[in-house]
């Protein structure tokens, strides 16, 4: 179970207190009706789903209730940063190498 730092409560809490909110920084378009079907589908469904650093939303649903964002390495599951909603994505791209054991022969 992940241990997640909530930037509002300023404490680490187990993942069970949080609800995952998917990829971060996908803002709802200001005027959806002006979008083409493609653009709207992009907003609704297309996700970067990266293998590596991912900016994602979490909500401290069983804590302070706030949504916030986090950078996490989806390979090691290590958190690189957490930041409040509305703040820009921190400039962290490459995590330290934490590649887990390969499943098998190299």
């Amino acid at each position: 179970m992940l241990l997640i730092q909530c930037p509002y409560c300023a404490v680490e809490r187990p993942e069970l207190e949080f609800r995952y909110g998917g990829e971060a920084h996908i803002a709802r378009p200001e005027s959806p009706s002006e979008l083409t079907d493609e653009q709207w589908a992009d907003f609704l469904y297309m996700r970067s789903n990266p293998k590596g650093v991912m900016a994602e939303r979490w909500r401290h649903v069983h804590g302070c209730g706030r949504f916030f964002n986090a950078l996490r390495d989806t390979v090691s599951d290590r958190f690189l940063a957490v930041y409040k909603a509305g703040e820009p994505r921190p400039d962290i791209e490459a995590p330290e190498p934490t590649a887990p054991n390969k499943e098998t022969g190299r």
Partner: protein
Amino acid sequence: MTQIRRTRSGGRIDRSQPVRFTFDGRELTGFAGDTLASALLANDEHLVGRSFKYHRPRGILTAGSEEPNALVGVTRSPGSGTPNLRATQVELHEGLSARSQNRFPSLGFDIGAVNDLMSPLFVAGFYYKTFMWPKSFWNRVYEPFIRAAAGLGTAPTAPDRDRYANRYVHCDVLIAGAGPAGIAAALSAAEAGARVILADEQAEMGGALLHETGATVEGQPADRWLEAALAELAANPRVTLLPRTTAFGYFNHNYIALGERVTDHLAVPDPDLPRERLWQVRARQVVIAAGSIERPLVFPENDRPGVMLAEAGRIYANRYGVLPGRSIAVATACDTAYRAALDIHAAGGSIAVIADLRERPDEALVAEARAAGIRVETSCVVTGVLGRKRVRGVLLGRLRAGSVTAAGTVNADCLLMSGGWTPNVSLHSQSRGKLVWDEERGAYLPGDAVQAERSAGSCAGVDGLAAVLADGARAGAEAAREATGKAHAPREILAEGGEAGIGWVLGALPHDRDAARVRAFVDYQNDVTAKDVKLAVREGMHSIEHIKRYTTTGMATDQGRLSNMNALSIASTALDRPVPEVGLTTFRQPYTPVSFGTLATTSRGDLFDPVRKTPIHDWAAGQGAAFEDVGLWKRAWYFPRGGEDMHRAVERECRTVRESVGLFDASTLGKIEVVGPDAAEFLNRIYTNPWLKLGPGRLRYGLMLNEAGFIMDDGVVGRLAEDRFHVTTTTGGAPRVLAHMEDYLQTEWPDLKVWLTSTTEQWAVIAVQGPKAREAIAPIIDDIDLATEALPHMSMREGHVMGGIPCRLFRMSFTGEAGYELNVPPSRAREVWEAVWANVEKLGGCAYGTETMHVLRAEKGYIIVGQETDGTVTPDDVGMSWAIGKKKRDFVGMRSLARPDLVAEGRKQLVGLLTRDGTTLLEEGAQITREAVPALKTPALGHVTSSYVSPAAGRPIALAMIADGRARMGETLHVPMPEGAITVEVVPPVFVDPEGARLNV
């Protein structure tokens, strides 16, 4: 004669406390402190089980949790035995009843052993190549045969009545393993002031210190020092000692699961104690002190009862006072086996020979053994054993330039073997730490850690007691420093004795036997031989994962701890690639098997999930109501009277509501108070409906879409004030709706000044519906004018009932009848309910449940989200375009409604259905077709969403979603059923009072 292999003295057993137990129904005796394995060995019982595939006789191989052979079933009460327990871990207690497994009719004579004769056919992967003809035989003949032959013990058949517990705990330093390294780590970490948990899978802590009888620590005998060290730790309030507790899982972010066995070792457990307890530990730092495991030698017939690991033999002698045989041969490639031989010899055992594979073993050791009168042969390989259910003799061979010549037979009933030591890297690997191949040791060692952990002692490749203690102390101090930020020097612990395990061999040993006829086992439990591994390679299984899966090596209950390295080495030779290039299979959790009960902990029955009950629940129960589960809630389903079934009860309830009045508990509806200057704007964006112009005191039905344009929830919303709304949601949807609203509010529209508070349980809701509803509530209303002019349909007032109980009174209807919903405080709800009930009874009314509610609303064509809709339905599909604010620029889901397939022809639309015969009740979920007997795979036009006998309509009615349904009014369609098609007519989905006149009485 009993306990004939017991030494005269020594060991940690309590010879003053004999313990009686049974094995396969035979009464035997051991001593307190024995394991089942040591007690059986004391009685000279080696044959303990049968192997998985070939049903070969198997004995006790080890003295620990890695035991692959001696698996037994232990029964406390009929039907609730525990299968597959390792005899080496089962602590003896008075009355213990254990049975051998995988044999019929008896352990000594097992019909399944015919498989062993068939073994030339039953090689690795044989079932992939056969049993395909005739096809029908697979399910009926072959598979049942394979299934019955496989499997080990018997699953319990009776519900487990034992209790299981859970404990969350945090610590600075968790130490897994309380051998010398773990103890030293704990002493150092505790001294540094850290919060320490020390867990060990054995009943007694100490690991090797429990049988290192010759070693001294700090000038004391090892066991004396251990006693003092444990006492010191136990006295420290910041240290938690957990014996019988296995660290079985290492999860992300230093989350470690421990399984504690609390009562299985007790003859008469306190019923209050849980059988097992799950410890969920969040550790700042972890020290893995899991020790190392001795490796078997791979030689023909190495699986015969009486063949045992050398260190296990030593443990049985030193710790349990048991000699593993009358005449004991030792085959080794490692120094530690000499110590085993010497200790057993000193305990009165007879060592027939030490056969050392090595040409030049340590001279001092050889001299010591010879001085004790033990025959030592070097360059000597064991090439097989005599005997079937028990070793009768050992075949030796002389190794010369890679070839083997026979070197005679030694009479022995026990063979101790050692192929060297495998550091136990399971937990490190589980934590995703890297492993590095150490060519010199022929072993994988822990490499870089990914999480906050470190390995210490022999699991890290450190050899010899003094070095292990020092390494443990270092690791403990280091972990404490990193966890607490405070530095403290490691404890210095001087030790002598406890030699290092120098020397090893990997893979199949050479022999002079007929290779086609003999089998050398790599994975004992799964009956995988060296030949199987080679066959897998021959067939193209070149990845170690393929080899593992094809042969099943390493997939037994020891998870390959004994077999992996030998299998890897054999594969490496067959592939002609060095071991590290062949790879290593992943170590998975659990470290050792963990019971489902331990994982499920206290979750069972009413504690499985919260049971949410309304304040009216007990009243309804008292009236004999039946309940249904909706989300976590129990809702009154119907109120049968005098032996009514659901059908009759519901019919009566429906009639009563339409004729007089009915009382319904709607407390489970979700409620959200939406407050703030931007409340109306917020709702305007969240719901399809317009809200800006709804006046205070008015109610409006609200429809909510997800962003994909599909209906996700609905409910009535009341405006309490300019800046305050009382929102209701469906019962099951309440948490989802609140989360949905919060998401948009916080992340899309943070500028809106509005806040959401769940008030689901602030208000109990008593719905009073029917032409006499007003009469039913009027007597209890304090200060609200109920006249239609003052309180018309779809309006609300705040006031009081029953002399001061606060009430939000909604005039609304989900039945088509005039009705009210009284929102009152739950603590007073029962009083109010009973007061209304008294009036309802006088008026000839009744209480009704969710089923009647469903019928009444269906008669009116009101949808239920989740029944008419299924997450693929738009407002227009259910004829609710009227709920969409036409002038709105945007709301959640609006853009999606314009997507091509959401406006396409042929969408399913809500209609009513009447069966042509006027009497047949359709089944909910039944499909609707154009033809009475459609060709197979003809797409249906739609399906029946709701179907009831309607007392008001005097016939069955149904709602349905049908392609282009609104254009099909009057059409005749069919509902094909197994018994034949039912003819139906498409009608408007309102069956009662289409004008809505009854709402305004």
